[in-house]
């Protein structure tokens, strides 16, 4: 057992070597005609803080409390958002959300509704996008793509032929993208936020 750390270290070196020699295909967002693939999509935005620490976190908490009404009514106005939450973990501001439709449409509707609140939060982030986002929406969308975790394909046969093995393609991908979304369960797949609100008798849009 004394050799375990050595073996683990050797594996890491080998995987890094593989990844450098044969860079993995990093999957982009999945698109398909199926409705279940087009609603309840996820965004995992991981934004390193410029100066992580108690003061920064406290300032962000204060900002979100002060602007909570704007934020929630803005997300209501977008209308395609199921859940959205902000977290600070390990020096990263994170926005985790579940939304319907194309991510680029979502981000653009989001900028139009609550871009000003988001701009204030982005002021705490390292290497922020060009601000205000409302005057640079396309560059903000690009920035989101680079800060949104990659999503492992639901259908692993794209990467793995034999699930009893850990193939090189999966190892080099997890080396290149150490953080990723591994999967997601849906209790009611295929339904949009507006459908659920409508079924529950809640206001679902512009009436």
């Amino acid at each position, binding site marked *: 057992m004394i050799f375990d750390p050595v073996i683990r270290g050797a594996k890491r070196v080998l995987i890094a070597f593989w990844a450098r020699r044969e860079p993995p295909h990093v999957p982009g967002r999945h698109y398909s005609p199926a409705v279940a693939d087009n609603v309840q999509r996820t965004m995992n935005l991981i934004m390193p803080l410029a100066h992580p620490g108690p003061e920064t976190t406290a300032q962000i908490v204060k900002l979100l409390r002060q602007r909570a009404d704007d934020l929630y009514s803005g997300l209501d106005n977008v209308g395609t958002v199921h859940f959205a939450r902000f977290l600070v973990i390990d020096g990263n501001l994170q926005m985790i959300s579940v939304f319907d439709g194309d991510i680029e449409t979502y981000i*653009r509707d989001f900028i*139009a509704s609550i871009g000003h609140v988001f701009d204030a939060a982005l002021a705490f982030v390292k290497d922020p996008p060009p601000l205000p986002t409302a005057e640079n929406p396309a560059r903000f969308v690009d920035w989101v793509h680079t800060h949104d975790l990659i999503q492992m394909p639901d259908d692993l046969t794209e990467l793995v032929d034999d699930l009893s093995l850990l193939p090189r393609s999966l190892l080099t991908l997890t080396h290149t993208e150490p953080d990723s979304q591994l999967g997601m369960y849906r209790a009611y797949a295929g339904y949009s936020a507006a459908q659920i609100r409508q079924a529950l008798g809640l206001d679902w849009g512009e009436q």
Partner: protein
Amino acid sequence: MSPAIPTRDDVQGWVLSGYNYPFSRHHVVAVHDRMAVRSLLRDAVTGTGGVTQIQSALPWGERPPLLANVGFTHSGLAALGVGRADLDRFPTDFRMGAARRAIRVGDFGDNAPNHWDVGTRDSSRAHLLWSMHGLTIDDLDRGTAELAGLGSALDIVATYDGTALPDNVVHFGYVDGLAQPRIAGFHEPAGDISPLGAFFLGHPSQFEGVIFDMPSPTELVTNATFNAFRVLEQDVFAFEDFLDDAADQTGRNREWVAAKICGRWRNGNSLVTHPDVAGEPDDPTVVDTFGFGDDPRGEVCPFASHIRRVNPRDGEMVTRSANNSRRVIRRGMPYGPLIEPGQPRDDVARGLIGNFFCASLTAQFEGLQHDWINQGLHHPNIVGTNDPISGFNGTGDGVFTIPMADEPDIILRGFDTFTRTRASVYTIMPTLSALRWLVRSA
């Protein structure tokens, strides 16, 4: 500083006018000799050297026999010498081009780029879109000869000829082109009006507080307009068969079904103003003056109908205040021969050459295609269903709900995709002063 307001003598006329000519021709052009093509463009801007002048939006007296307009792909701007730093500032949708964005707009399966015409999906060859409108085919041929006169300096890699059909109908039999956005500064400021920035780069957009990203240099992009050029083949026989089947299944008149799926009767009249019968065609001044606000259940005009998807007007919407946010200026002309009533099925290609002008391809054209035409996300009653006329319905996967007032809703199922994408090219159409800047050193 705010950019200069677009003017009729500077913007390309096609953005502001559908021209209403009988013939059109679009050449997708590969640039081989930068200086020779820049020289051609310089002549085209000034209308000298025997080259037809790029048409501005100034009114004309007598109709010119030939109108020419030009757009550039991202690789086309590179081919003409725009620098890398500037090229990198263009929005990602335009930089990627239509083929790499295809999946986002519903170009799956038979509509996917590997089925498109080769020249149009190859960014190393699709550089310019040279669009002409002519009073006769001979006029168009003259315009083609102006390009061909450059010999090996360019290649025409694809050509699409449009022919207007009688009464402005398209091959599915509907009168088309009735609804167009009206733009502040160019149209009467009554009713819904789009801000300049919805169609010309550099101005406040239709999203409150948002200005779409300005690429650089400003000399090239100010007041420019993006265009999604699309060649959409229409299976008219399958569409008419579907109407027959739907009429049989529902016991309704097939023209009533045709009106429900489009939102307009085939003569162009809206279901809102003519809920029961088509009637005589409305006067052009009133044919587009209707809304959906008084039809909250879609019992008059279904939520899933083509015109209510692409332009929900004042109807209720999931995304508040988005009703006018995805509007595009549509310039379309049919191609291929008209089908006579009772004509047996043939294999002749026919369809629509569509141009969709906007200031943001993602926010307008692609948002419309992905979220509304192909997913129905703007209304909870139609989520997951696609536009029956222009959406991707797979093979036999189509579903269309007709809400009924005093009886169970009618649901049509199992229809195919009637429209196939044959080509798609994203271009930018600069102003005439921008073209002068582009060719300044020619």
